[in-house]
């Protein structure tokens, strides 16, 4: 018995559990932390990310908000202005549009316009991403809007380890952060993993090389990391060695890791499920071409969603989104360039 208690069997945890742990551990460690959002209390959130949180920390620290995203963001700013650390949930990241002004004009700029007097530790997080049949309003990846709005951290984890470590880092960072959770990964058992017992963070602005390779660099984040990894496996069979980079945090971006990879491969493909025009794939391509032009032996490639909304029925949805096949084909063309 004693032995069992002192060395519990470590179980693999999924992405959702990792997020839950991050929030409840931070809540426990930081008495000045508050969570707010729609249905996060009694219900525990639409996806259960805050399940049990209100039981543990009470209705004052875990607030069931009216359906009012501008009030949610605005109140988060006020709470943070008065000393609190805030986790604000968007039921789906798509609905962030309803609180958009409060994010880009009120929250993002507060530190800037007060010349540093005020900083806002607010993480706005929510389920994002397509491939699940969620249609136009439950599938968005709208991270580019926030990357174009100075003053916001923008983060998107793809693994349970990162989900927990990045969320903790974001909550402690002291700056407002838009935290994109990939809902299709929430309960994906294949990616479940054993998490450290001890407190840890994954620093913002540090990319992860998910697979090493020498012929072409595939850069991605979120769900598309798995498309890239699958493509890399297939490419290997075809004799092409692909390196896969998961940037994890968009703002700040770890350019060094990308450039280092490019120095090996001299070829880059950026994969991302958001619309192409002014999306983050283009940002990476621009950084690479303006700053590491000489490393390029072939034109960089963007594989993104077509410039369309995300349609509902499966064939249409898949048609507009990046696929393993599109990545493989592009990589083959690129290495032959």
């Amino acid at each position: 018995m004693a032995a069992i208690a002192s060395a519990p069997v470590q179980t693999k945890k999924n992405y959702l559990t990792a997020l839950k742990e991050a929030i409840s551990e931070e809540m426990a460690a930081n008495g000045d932390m508050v969570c707010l959002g729609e249905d996060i209390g009694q219900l525990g959130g639409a996806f259960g990310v805050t399940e049990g949180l209100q039981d543990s920390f009470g209705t004052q620290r875990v607030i069931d908000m009216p359906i009012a995203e501008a009030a949610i963001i605005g109140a988060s700013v006020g709470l943070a202005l008065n000393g609190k650390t805030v986790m604000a949930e968007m039921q789906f990241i798509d609905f962030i549009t309803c609180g958009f002004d409060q994010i880009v004009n009120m929250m993002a700029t507060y530190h800037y316009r007060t010349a540093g007097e005020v900083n806002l530790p607010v993480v706005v997080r929510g389920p994002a991403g397509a491939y699940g049949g969620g249609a136009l309003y439950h599938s968005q990846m709208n991270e580019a809007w926030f990357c174009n709005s100075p003053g916001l951290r923008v983060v998107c984890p793809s693994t349970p380890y990162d989900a927990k470590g990045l969320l903790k880092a974001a909550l402690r960072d002291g700056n407002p952060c838009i935290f994109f959770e990939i809902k299709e990964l929430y309960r994906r058992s294949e990616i479940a993993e054993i998490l450290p017992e001890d407190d840890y963070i994954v620093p913002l602005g540090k990319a992860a090389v998910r697979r090493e390779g020498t012929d072409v660099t595939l850069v991605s984040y979120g769900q598309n990391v798995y498309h890239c990894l699958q493509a890399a496996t297939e490419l290997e069979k075809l004799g092409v060695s692909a390196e896969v980079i998961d940037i994890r945090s968009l703002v700040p971006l770890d350019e060094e890791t990308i450039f280092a990879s490019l120095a090996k491969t001299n070829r880059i493909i950026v994969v991302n499920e958001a619309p192409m025009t002014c999306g983050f794939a283009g940002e990476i391509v621009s950084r690479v071409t303006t700053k590491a032009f000489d490393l390029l032996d072939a034109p960089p490639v963007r594989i993104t969603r077509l410039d369309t909304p995300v349609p509902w029925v499966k064939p249409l949805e898949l048609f507009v989104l990046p696929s393993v096949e599109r990545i493989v084909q592009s990589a083959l063309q690129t290495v032959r360039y």
Partner: protein
Amino acid sequence: MPLQTTTDAAELPSHDQVSDPGIRHFATKRYRDSLTKEDCLEMFRQLYLARYFDVRLIKEKKRGRLRGTLYSSHNQEAILVGSLFGLRSTDWISPIHRDMPAFFLKDAKFQWAELDRMGLSIQQVCSQVWGRVDSPGRARDNWSHIGSKEKRIIHSTSMLAGTIPVAAGVVYADRMNGGDAVVVTYNGEGSTAQGVFHEAVNFAAVHKLPVVTIIENNQWAYGTPVRLGCATPDVADRAKGFGIPGYIADGQDVFDVYDKVMSAVEFARSGQGPSIVECKTFRAYGHGDHDDDRANKYRDPAEIEHGRLRDPIAVCRQSLLDLGYISAEEAEMFIAEGKNASEATNEDFPPEVVDYLNSGIEFALASPQPEAEEGGMWVFKESK
């Protein structure tokens, strides 16, 4: 006065005489009084139809035939039937997630079994549900996000209360053209906390636009009770902040809903402006079918039982009995009330109701899925 009101209705001055805007809990009775026996029986049938649509879809979903979330309108059907029954073919509506039956019930009066109407056909609605190309939107957006310019149904996004300003614009245009159309928008009580609700109703109030905003107060917004979203005693009190009438209807009584909504509609049509009609009801199940289990945890069983006590089908049947429009035997033919999808069978519903929906489902199943390439189409209208 053939119909009994279920609430303690007091006679109010006629609309034109009501000068102080505010709550009118009880509208005049004149609208329900003008319903014929045929009307009443038709509304009764429509309640069965709405219920059957729900029950059947849950069954189909359980059989793995449907994708997406089912937002049941079980126990709330009287709001749809009662509010749609009196509309004209020129009127517009804007239903939300919980109102799927509204699409085919619209302007269904006397002809709900016909195919060509001002609402969408059951074939179109089923094609949408099954994700087929004969959906009016070719199944590009999901579930309740359909509509039709031709049939005067506004397409919603998911963003709650987001169609109210659109509705206001639609009737503004109609009024410019000399029309007398009214638009009826549907929203949950939780959605009244949205900023756009305020902006749009306020705009409509300033311009006295014919916008009727129905609040389906089913006591819960997903997992959040009404008291955490709204601090007024009644949600209809929101109207006071805009200087417009706020009506309260018994959402379980199709005739009371008809009464109050028609009061609001004719108030609007006559140029007196927008109003809010709160229909008090109760959400029978979870928020969506994925939430059924949890909804039994965050909601008190006693509350659920109480909320489902007055099934709109039963309430309507009793009125028809009281009026002598149906016999005791007829009344016992189809007992659908209170039955969840797992309990209900086709025998609990009038055969024409079952046939009607079957015709829609059959059509849908024969309709092809859209081609993948359609995903890339219609981002822009091609310029001239």
